[in-house]
């Protein structure tokens, strides 16, 4: 303590009263600060929304949507970006709201109809933005303190969030342009950081938040990111997102009577594990990239799905429905589009990192396709159906 009395102390009200807009004297509340943080928050939300939209359409494809199978790490990249931009948006949103916090106490509460709409849209924006970030972070850690089905509602509220952001930017565009056109300046406030100082603090905090989590998808940050969702180990050095025990398939998967059944237009075909092992094998380095954002590369060996399609009298490029021994969950089945069945790296994998596939990784065989969400890399495959 430097011992000097602070002159502002005398300016504080003697008796407590609710704060007013003019009580907030910090430099952080200036429009040069608000507009700059707002710009980066807008960029973070846009990246998060677009990558989320891609992930949504890969899992719920429509006729006009196309997702390439190359580069093999494309989904790993977009979904990693989804989570990183979402994490970055947390400190940015908090800093942005702190920057405009005094306006909450502006009087009168409502000046006019446009003013009422503006305030309402900001409430909607803040509610939907917090909703997306809170539910998103809980989902990263597979922690669900709510009864609703996360993917559906996270997707729906994302539209509300970007919509209200667009309306908000439209309303504020003149102020944003003024704010961005002025220099923030280094002059410290009476009780606060300078404008430039607050901005730097925001960027630094955002950087630390990203560093602390990005190891989920960025390999060289794995040991630095203390809040990342994957450890260095798992069975066969690969994290498991649903274990064989949870899926309740151990008996069926280890039954010697297990056969892979492929329903093709020209009839039903059965393959034993020995049959599959006898077919030409392909070995490839492919990532598992989960919708929750974590991803990890591994070396997979197995039969190219294109070869299987040829073996049953069909051709690569035909869509293929894949069914697991696990039934009645989101992991139960998936459909490989033609783009992926014709890619020679789309495998029915039998081996992982040089060993027979672990039960937790889908023994006796699983799908591993390039550039697809982990939830669609169906494990414990028992049946396939060639779709015409």
């Amino acid at each position, binding site marked *: *303590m*430097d011992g000097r009395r602070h*002159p502002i102390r005398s300016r504080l009200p003697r008796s407590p009263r609710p704060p007013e807009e003019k009580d907030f004297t*910090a430099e952080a509340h200036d429009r040069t600060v608000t507009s700059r943080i707002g710009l980066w928050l807008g960029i973070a939300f846009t990246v998060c929304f677009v990558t989320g939209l891609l992930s949504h359409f890969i899992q719920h494809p429509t006729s006009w949507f196309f997702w390439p199978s190359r580069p093999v790490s494309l989904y790993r990249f977009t979904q990693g970006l989804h989570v990183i931009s979402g994490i970055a948006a*947390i400190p940015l949103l*908090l800093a942005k*709201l*702190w920057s405009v*916090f005094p306006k909450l106490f502006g009087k009168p509460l409502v000046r006019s109809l446009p003013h009422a709409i503006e305030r309402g849209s900001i*409430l*909607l924006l*803040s509610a*939907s933005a*917090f*909703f997306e970030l*809170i539910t998103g*972070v809980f989902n990263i*850690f*597979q*922690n*669900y*303190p709510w*009864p609703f089905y996360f993917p559906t*509602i996270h997707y*729906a509220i994302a*539209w*509300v969030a970007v*919509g209200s952001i*667009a*309306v*908000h*930017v*439209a*309303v504020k*565009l*003149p102020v944003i342009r003024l704010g961005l056109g002025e220099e923030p300046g280094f*002059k*410290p406030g*009476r*009780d*606060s950081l300078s404008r430039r100082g607050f901005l730097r*603090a925001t960027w630094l*905090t955002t950087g630390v938040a990203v560093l*602390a*989590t990005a190891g989920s998808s960025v390999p060289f940050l794995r040991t630095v990111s*203390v*809040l*990342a*969702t*994957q450890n260095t*180990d*798992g*069975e066969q050095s690969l*994290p*498991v*997102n*649903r*274990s064989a025990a*949870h899926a309740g398939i151990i008996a069926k998967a280890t039954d010697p009577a297990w056969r892979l059944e492929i329903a093709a237009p020209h009839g039903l075909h059965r393959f034993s594990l020995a049959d599959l092992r006898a077919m030409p094998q392909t070995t490839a380095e492919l990532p598992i990239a989960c919708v929750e954002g974590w991803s990890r590369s591994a070396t997979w060996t197995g039969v190219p799905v294109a070869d299987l399609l040829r073996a049953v009298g069909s051709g690569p490029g035909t869509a293929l429905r894949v069914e697991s021994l696990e039934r009645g969950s989101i992991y139960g089945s998936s459909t490989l589009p033609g783009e992926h069945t014709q890619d020679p790296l789309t495998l029915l994998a039998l081996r992982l990192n040089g060993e027979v596939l672990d039960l*937790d990784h889908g023994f006796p065989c699983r799908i591993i396709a390039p550039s697809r969400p982990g939830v669609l890399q169906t494990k414990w495959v028992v049946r396939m159906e060639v779709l015409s």
Partner: protein
Amino acid sequence: MRTTRIVLALAGLAALGYGISLVVPFAIGSPESARSTVEFLVGGPVVHDGIVAPVVGVVGLLIARKLPRHWRTPVRLGAAISAVLGLIAVPALWRGYAGLHNPGLDDRNYPLGLLLALLVVWLVVVAAALARRRTDQPPPTAVGRQNR
């Protein structure tokens, strides 16, 4: 700029409307989910505006009034970083509603990791404050305002 604003507003309203049209059938289908969704929607602004932001304000004021000058900026940064790391760590530390355990995925030692990260942050804070004290030259504003 007028055209940009109109296009942006209309696109925004369309996206907003589409989002609401997705929420409504979901909400009608399950009243329990609807109630919980509304709680989480309202909860964000209420907790932020009612608790988080006021706490930030009071802590900021305390830092400005109670700490020696060279400590203020490092402590502000340390507090902001600690708070954000703490917030992100909530679902990792509080596993009340966590799904089934997945080997290799969620078995990192989060309490230890967070503790180490905070330790590093606050070591840097202390180092920065001490470095600032060593190179301390009285800032013109503080002296001018208080003693002249």
